[in-house]
């Protein structure tokens, strides 16, 4: 299905060499994360109701924000791929989906750890919690599709469609779960944020955003290298191995 692609655009050794700036970004992200967490933990007074439990907010909430950013990137890149058909959009969407899945899983795990001491249960059918879980499942499906399809054009085209429909469904899922819960009546989640926590929360949000960008870029770079290798292997397979 995929056509032979000319490979002269980028000589392979050069593509392997340019990793420096990304590693710097990784280091900066790491330092920012440590700094932001120290800031958050050291400066915030214990919460009136939750005590020190409030400090979980600094890891849980930024992870949630950034997983949404990642899936927004997936949706945009899927749309761009369907529109323009450029491989880089497909690879970027795939990278963002993988990183976003990791962050969503973290969000759920951290939410669960927060929920146990505050609500007394590991899991509650709260709208946000539940729709985050559905989001995770949708993108696990997306990644499964990618791993089950070998042909590169097919994989790109199909996963762009799946990513787009999945993103389209997120607000509908959220709304339906919200109605479902309000009709049955449950406790509300601790969503009110005192102003004294806002600075720490923002700092952590930005630090995690840096980590997210580093992860996506690193994954994207690896995906590019993988594609390049795949194309070379394909070419070798097509021309036969008589020269080797």
């Amino acid at each position, binding site marked *: 299905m995929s056509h032979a692609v000319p490979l002269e655009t980028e000589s392979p050794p050069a593509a392997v060499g340019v990793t420096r700036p990304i590693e710097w970004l990784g280091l900066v992200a790491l330092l920012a994360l440590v700094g932001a967490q120290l800031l958050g933990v050291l400066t915030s007074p214990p919460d009136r109701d939750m005590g020190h439990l409030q400090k979980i907010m600094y890891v849980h909430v930024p992870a949630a924000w950034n997983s949404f950013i990642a899936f927004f990137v997936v949706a945009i890149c899927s749309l761009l791929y369907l529109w323009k058909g450029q491989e880089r959009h497909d690879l970027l969407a795939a990278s963002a989906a993988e990183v976003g899945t990791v962050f969503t899983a973290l969000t759920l795990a951290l939410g669960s750890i*927060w929920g146990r*001491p505050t609500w007394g249960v590991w899991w509650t059918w709260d709208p946000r919690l539940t729709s985050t879980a559905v989001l995770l499942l949708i993108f696990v499906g997306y990644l499964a599709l990618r791993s089950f399809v070998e042909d590169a054009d097919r994989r790109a085209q199909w996963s762009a469609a799946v990513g787009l429909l999945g993103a389209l469904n997120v607000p509908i899922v959220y709304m339906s779960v919200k109605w479902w819960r309000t009709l049955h009546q449950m406790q509300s989640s601790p969503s009110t944020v005192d102003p004294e926590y806002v600075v720490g929360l923002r700092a952590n949000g930005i630090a995690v955003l840096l*980590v997210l960008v580093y992860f996506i870029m690193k994954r994207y770079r690896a995906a590019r290298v993988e594609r390049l290798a795949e194309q070379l292997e394909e070419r070798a397979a097509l021309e036969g191995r008589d020269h080797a």
Partner: protein
Amino acid sequence: MLEGNGFVVAAYVVMWVGVLGYAVRLHRVSRDAKHRLAQASRVDARRHI
């Protein structure tokens, strides 16, 4: 309260395990990809001499 603080520690541990674990995985993935590309381009170069 003590029990509550245990949860805080657990949350931060889980978070760091997740982030560092994924960083390690990414490192492996990109190393494997580079090896694969180096291998493929060696084969390719040999055939085009």
